[in-house]
């Protein structure tokens, strides 16, 4: 599959490497030329030599999206650091370029939820973090109330610290 990732930050670049490793064709678009270095973390060869593509450009520019290959993308991932940018470019990918699978990373849970209801596929890491933290705190509370045993393998003295 051809995967286009817009925004090669921590999330975008790791996803890009992983998808390339899985054997997909991967193209990244980022406005910062320096982001290219992030793609090569822990790689022993250049990103391009591995078959990856990297384009410098702004996500809202049709020329940049076209240069990055949006017209033949099977999957479009919007993972820039701006929620609104991700929401807007995902809608462009869907409505204008008819990309079959479009995924937008949206940090604000409320915006993510509403756009999800509107038919835009959103991934909200904040929601995941809230779930995980809630579970941790609830587990701690249950343990304090004696409803759960202390964490496995740790003796009572260490657990108090």
């Amino acid at each position: 599959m051809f995967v286009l990732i817009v925004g090669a930050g921590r999330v975008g670049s790791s996803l890009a490497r992983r998808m390339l490793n899985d054997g997909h064709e991967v193209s990244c678009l980022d406005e910062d030329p320096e982001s290219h270095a992030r793609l090569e973390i822990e790689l022993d060869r250049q990103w391009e030599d591995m078959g990856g593509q990297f384009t410098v450009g702004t996500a809202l520019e049709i020329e940049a999206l076209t240069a990055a290959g949006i017209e033949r993308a099977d999957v479009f991932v919007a993972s820039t650091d701006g929620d609104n940018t991700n929401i807007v470019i995902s809608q462009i990918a869907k409505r204008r370029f008819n990309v079959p699978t479009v995924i937008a990373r949206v940090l604000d849970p409320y915006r993510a939820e509403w756009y999800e209801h509107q038919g835009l596929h959103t991934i909200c890491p904040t929601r995941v973090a809230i779930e995980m933290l809630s579970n941790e705190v609830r587990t701690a509370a249950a343990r304090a109330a004696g409803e759960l045993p202390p964490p496995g393998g740790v003796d009572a003295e260490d657990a108090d610290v």
Partner: protein
Amino acid sequence: MAERMYVIIVGAGKVGWNLARELLEKGNEVTLIENNRERYLTVEQELEHNVQYGDASELWVLERAGISRAEMVIAVTGDDEDNMLICQVAKEKYLVDRTIARVNNPRNREHFELLGIKPLVSATDLILRLIEHEVPEYGLIHLLDLPEQRLEIIEMLLQDDSKATGQRVGDLEMPEGSLLISVLREGSGFVPNADTVLQSGDEILAVLDPTVEEDLTAYFGPDGQLD
């Protein structure tokens, strides 16, 4: 403005601040939302409770401002994506009847249109139109476009060699679907009647169906040929 409206303006830059002030002076209820703390504090000294601090692309900020009862939302931040999203959410989630969005980069206009956001205001486009207005070689000037109603109002400068120059308005062979609405001559404007004779140098305003634009240009334009 006869009726009092509740208007939410997002972005307290020069445009937003002045707009808020004008709308308040006309007796409207206004909430201006600004997400830069420093700017907010400056504007707040004048507009007091009419300005709120926050990022209006967060839904709760819009809700706190009372978006569900707003009759109009105007997004004039310096960020086009923010303006797009705020207007889209205002229209589709909170069912606000009227939105106005500012386009900072004219190249983003097509994205606003793709998301169904209108009307759009772009300073660059306005200045371009003013340039066209000042430079008559451009010929026809679009003053107002109403694409859904299939109407536009245009302005044209009559030259010596135009076929319409020297003609009585009553004798004009205006293309079907167009109407001459006024004439600007020597600095003042008037509504012509059938006996008005058009002169070289007249600026004429016409309302028309966009499909007859070419016919009209041909008729009033420098070549003066009507097919």
